[in-house]
Structures are given as C-alpha cells and as structure tokens.
C-alpha cells in the first residue's frame, strides 16, 4: 500500500474515479446477465471472493467498532477514548459496504429482507443477518452523534448521549454473536473443509481474530490519514493499541496451536502440501511475525514498524479468512477457484468506496482530536487528554493484566 501524499491527491482521485466507473459498468452486467457473467463462481465453488473477502474480512476488519467502544465505555480505559470516533466511523462504513457487497453476491438481492420475516432459527445465516442488521443500526446510532455535532443539534446530541451505554452493550453483544457466528457458518461442513481449518473452535477463533483485526485496522487507518490529511492519533495511543494487539495475537496463536495439537494436525501443518503452505503463510507471516515484532517496545514506539506489524496482522487475517472460505474447500471439491477479473474489480470498487467514504468522514467530521493536525508521522507530542486520576486507578490494570498474561514488557 503506497502512502497517500498531498501533492498526489489528484492522481489518487483519478484512480478512484476510474475504479468507480468500471465498478458501475460491472454492476450493470451483474444485474442484467447474472452472477455467471462476472464471476468465476460455480456449483463446486458457490462462494468465492465476495463471501471470503467482502463479507468475512469486511466484518472482521470493522471489529474495531465494538472492541474500542467496549474498552472505553465498559472497561473505562480512557487512554483509548480519542480513538472511539475513528473506529465507529470505520465500523459503520464497513458494515454499509459489507451489506452493499452482499447485494452483489446474493442471487436475489431484492429479497434481502426475507430473513427478517421468514425465520429459521436453526440457520447460522439467519442469526448473522439479524445481528448484522441490528448492529448496523446500533452503529448508526453511535455514529449519528458526530452528525448531530456537525449540524449543531444539541437536543439530538443529548438524546444520542443518553442512549450511548445501552448501544455499546448491545453492540458488543451483537458483534460477539455475529463475529463468532461467521465461524459457526463453517461447522456444518466437516467433510468439505480441510482439517487445518475445520475445528469445533472456529467460532472462538473467529471472534478472537476479529478483535486483533479491529485493533490492527486502527493503527493502519491512523497512519493512512496522517499521510493523506495530516491527521492521526497520538503515538502513545497507537503503541498502547499495539501492546493490546500483541496480547490478543498471543492468545489467538496459542489457541490455534493448542487446537491443532489436540487434533494431531502438526504433521499436516508442516508437510508443505498446498494447504500446509497456505496455512504457514497465514500462521507465520500473518501471526507469528507481527506478534514477535510487537513484543519489542521499540517496535511499538516506532510509527513505521508499528504500522508494518499492523499491516502484517491484517494480511494474516485476510489470508486466514480466504483459507477458510476458499483454500480449505479446494481439496474436497476437486478443483481450484480463482476470482475472475470482473469479480476482483467489483471488490476493488467496494474497497475504493470505503476509502472514499472514510476520507470524507475524516475531512468533514470531527474524527481525530483536533489538536493533532500535523504532517508526517512520529513527530506528535504525547499529551493524554483525559483525567489521569482515572487512568491510574481503573484503566491501566486491565490492559496491564492482558499484557502481562503474555509477558510483554511494558513500554
């Protein structure tokens, strides 16, 4: 990912517009000619890039929304409060994009509302669709505060404030449910999904890795917007996020290894077959390396290295979701699936829309604390805004406990 820089904004704008134009054309083809005209989906691979990336990764990468609101509002870790807005905006945009991308993927998007009235409580997909609908509403309510603030509607802001806590609790519950349920989706295919990925612990693994992805996205976005708009978060906050991220990756990795071990899968994990190589890519490159990197206080204190670790974590997360949804099926289904060019371009189209919407948000809403409009990274002054009395008592222990659980030296 090349960093966005001011003088080149017009170039990126042109790229953006080109992608949008291509996206709209493909949109027309998709809805007049059917899925087969734009995708490589088939009866053997009914789910491809749009489910594997747009849905699974989209939802996971937007997990920062519930992770950060829970950390700040429920556990009162005040140091992360300046991050709340950016993550809520990301999550809200993320979910809108996921739902839009699903309109492309499902065969009959005009029937998308059916699960709300035609119930099948035995279906994970039914549960996921309810959770996603409700959670998007919750995110909208959380996000609306920023709009009301912009519009200067004090009454509406007050109402929005009053419902913040119930929203946060509901948001955390709904997220926990559907983040894990995306893993539960695959529990019904023991005979089809390769044993390196098929495990009864999928729901838990999906949930923990979504927490990691949410945190990594936070670091990633802050860096991008610092390059593009000169707005970013303070380095101490990002380092803190990096420390928690290390703890989460540690827990996730340990559970993954334990699970593979108890199922006697080490041999298959290391035999360098196609599946094994894809697994190692995900596990070593996207989990072990960033985890070890983040153990070093020096890495966490350096904007570039921290960003590197976050990018690796995100790539590892994406690889994992694609492995579960695509790689893991190729053996049993006898064949390979690679997305078509059009299919990929439509995904790129959605990612571009996401970047565009986020850029608009950063520019027009009060997303990052204002006193930090500076260019370049690593030059910020560290000045926690919020009451340090609180921090000394309630806030620190939780993070510290999480960090010491995996012996991370406190920066």
């Amino acid at each position, binding site marked *: 990912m090349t960093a966005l820089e001011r003088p080149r904004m017009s170039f990126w704008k042109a790229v953006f517009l080109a992608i949008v134009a291509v996206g709209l054309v493909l949109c027309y083809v998709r809805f007049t000619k059917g899925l087969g005209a734009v995708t490589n989906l088939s009866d053997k691979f009914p789910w491809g890039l749009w489910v594997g990336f747009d849905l699974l990764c989209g939802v996971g990468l937007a997990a920062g929304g519930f992770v950060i609101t*829970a950390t700040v509002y*429920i556990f009162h870790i005040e140091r992360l*409060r300046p991050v709340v807005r950016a993550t809520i905006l990301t999550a809200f945009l993320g979910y809108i994009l996921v739902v839009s991308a699903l309109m492309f993927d499902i065969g009959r998007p005009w*029937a998308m509302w059916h699960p709300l009235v035609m119930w*099948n409580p035995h*279906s994970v*997909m039914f549960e996921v669709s309810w959770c996603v609908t409700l959670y998007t509403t919750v995110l909208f309510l959380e996000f609306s505060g920023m709009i009301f603030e912009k519009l200067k509607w004090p009454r509406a802001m007050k109402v929005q404030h009053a419902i913040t806590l119930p929203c946060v609790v509901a948001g955390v*519950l709904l997220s926990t449910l559907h983040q894990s349920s995306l893993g539960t989706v695959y529990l019904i295919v023991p005979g089809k999904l390769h044993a390196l990925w098929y495990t009864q612990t999928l729901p838990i693994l999906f949930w923990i890795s979504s927490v990691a992805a949410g945190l990594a996205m936070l670091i990633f976005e802050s860096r991008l917007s610092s390059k593009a708009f000169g707005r970013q978060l303070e380095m101490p906050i990002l380092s803190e996020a990096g420390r928690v991220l290390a703890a989460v990756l540690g827990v996730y990795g340990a559970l993954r290894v334990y699970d593979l071990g108890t199922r006697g899968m080490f041999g298959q994990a290391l035999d360098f077959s196609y599946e094994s190589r894809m697994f190692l890519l995900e596990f070593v490159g996207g989990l072990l390396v960033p985890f070890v990197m983040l153990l070093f206080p020096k890495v966490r204190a350096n904007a570039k290295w921290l960003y590197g670790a976050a990018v690796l974590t995100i790539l590892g997360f994406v690889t994992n979701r694609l492995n579960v949804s695509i790689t893991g099926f190729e053996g049993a289904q006898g064949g390979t699936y690679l997305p078509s060019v059009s299919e990929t371009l439509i995904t790129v189209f959605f990612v571009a829309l996401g970047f565009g919407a986020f850029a608009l948000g950063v520019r027009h809403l009060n997303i990052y604390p204002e006193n930090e409009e500076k260019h370049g990274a690593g030059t910020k002054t560290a000045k926690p805004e*919020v009451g340090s009395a609180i921090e000394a008592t*309630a806030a620190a222990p939780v993070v510290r406990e999480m960090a010491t659980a995996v012996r991370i030296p406190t920066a």
Partner: protein
Amino acid sequence: MDTIPTAKSRAILFDMVRCTGCRGCINACLKTHDFKGEAKDTTELSATAYTAMRTEGEFNVRQMCRHCVTPSCASVCPVGALHKTDLGPVVYDESKCIGCRYCMVACPFNVPRYEWNSPVPAVRKCDMCIDRLKEGKPTACAEACRFGATVCGTREELVAEARKRIAEDPDMYYDHIYGEKELGGTNVMFITPQPIESLGYKAKLGETPLPNLTWNVLEKLPGVVVVGGAALSAFWWITNRRDEVSAAHAAAKHDATNGGTHKASGENDHDRA
C-alpha cells in the same frame, strides 16, 4: 434436533447391482421437467439435470438429492426456503430464497445447483417428484426403471426390500444399505456391489446429522447474550463506580488542602465523550 426417519415417508432405493445403465431414469427425469439435455450426456448434476449417471469401471453411479432425514440444506437456509416434508421429499420454495447459496455449501453430497446465468436465479435440485407422490404415483425415475434398480415406496418397505436383496444374493452385494443410517438417514438409499467409497460416492460421513454441529453452538447463544449482557453491565457499573469513588476521593483531598467548596463531579460517561 434429531429427526427420526419416518417409516411411512416416501423413499427411493437405487440398486446398483440391478442397474443396466440404460439411463431410463435419467431420461424420464429430463422429460418430466422439460429439460433439453440428452440422457446419455447427463453425467453430472446441473440446474437442468436433477439426476445424472457416471460410469465408474463397470458400474453405473447415479447421482441425485438424497432427501436427507435431517437435511443440512434446509437447516442452513436463513429463510426456510428448503424444507423436509412429512411425505419425504426435501423441497424448495423459490419465492422465499434470497440466493445466498449456503445450501450448496452445506450439502454434504454437493447436490444443489444454481442458475448462474440468470438475473433471477434459483436453486435447482431433485424434488422427488413430490407432485406425483401426492397423487400416489411413484417418482418418474422409478416408474421408468424396467429392472427394479430404482424403486419407490415407503422408507420402511424399501429398507426391508434392500435387506432382502442383500440376503438373497450375498455374493453380489456389499452388506450395507447406504443411507439407512448415514448422517441420521436419508430417504434415498443405495445398495452396491462394493464398498461405496470405491465407487466415487462420499463415504465416512458418520451417523450424526450435520445440523447438530451447528445447533450445538446456536443453542448456547441465548445464554451468551444473557450472561454477557449482565457481565458487561456489571463491569460498567464497577469501573464507573471506581471512577466516581476516586474522583470523589481526589476532590475531597482537594477540598481538604484548599478549603474550597469544590464539588465532587461524579464524572461519568455522559459528561465526556
């Protein structure tokens, strides 16, 4: 959520030993549904072929929906577009379907097919000729079979028939009714000359219906919501209280040293943000 195979539900028995490979069943199915294909070319299921036949060595391997007693496809469908009827067939209601294709992913036998090139696509699979069954007629494929290789009847009758055939000619048959117990049972059962895995069918499926794997998790969720909701609220209350106490504490100290009338603010979420 175990469903017990109902003895009286309709079923199909496919006897690979008796099958001559004449493809009468395939032809009958194509004709009944007005599909264009030729029976001899129909070797794979498709959106316009609800049954197909491949040759595996000297044997004819017939493919079709198994009409599982506890069907994965119906259990995963978010809108209940697929469901198991008391009569036996697992049927599909196009008007409910949203096109998520989870049924295709979930089916352990890779049966459902999709209309990939239609702007208004639907899932397609064998419906066990439910309209004929309702009239008391056998399925089209069973009616067409002149060798008793595809037969239609109640599940109970057909299990008995299969046992009888195996017992009468133990040299010709492998002693197993495929589909009697697999994945909790299916309404389409096979008897074969060899173990099923050597014939290109999926084997080692176990006897537990796959939807149980999902249900084991789903049934815990209400508990997660109640306990999780309570725990989150409790956490919030504790941390909030701690903040209030320490803020009051700090303010009291402040008062003591300054002798001022500064009031403990009891700061909470609503004042900040």
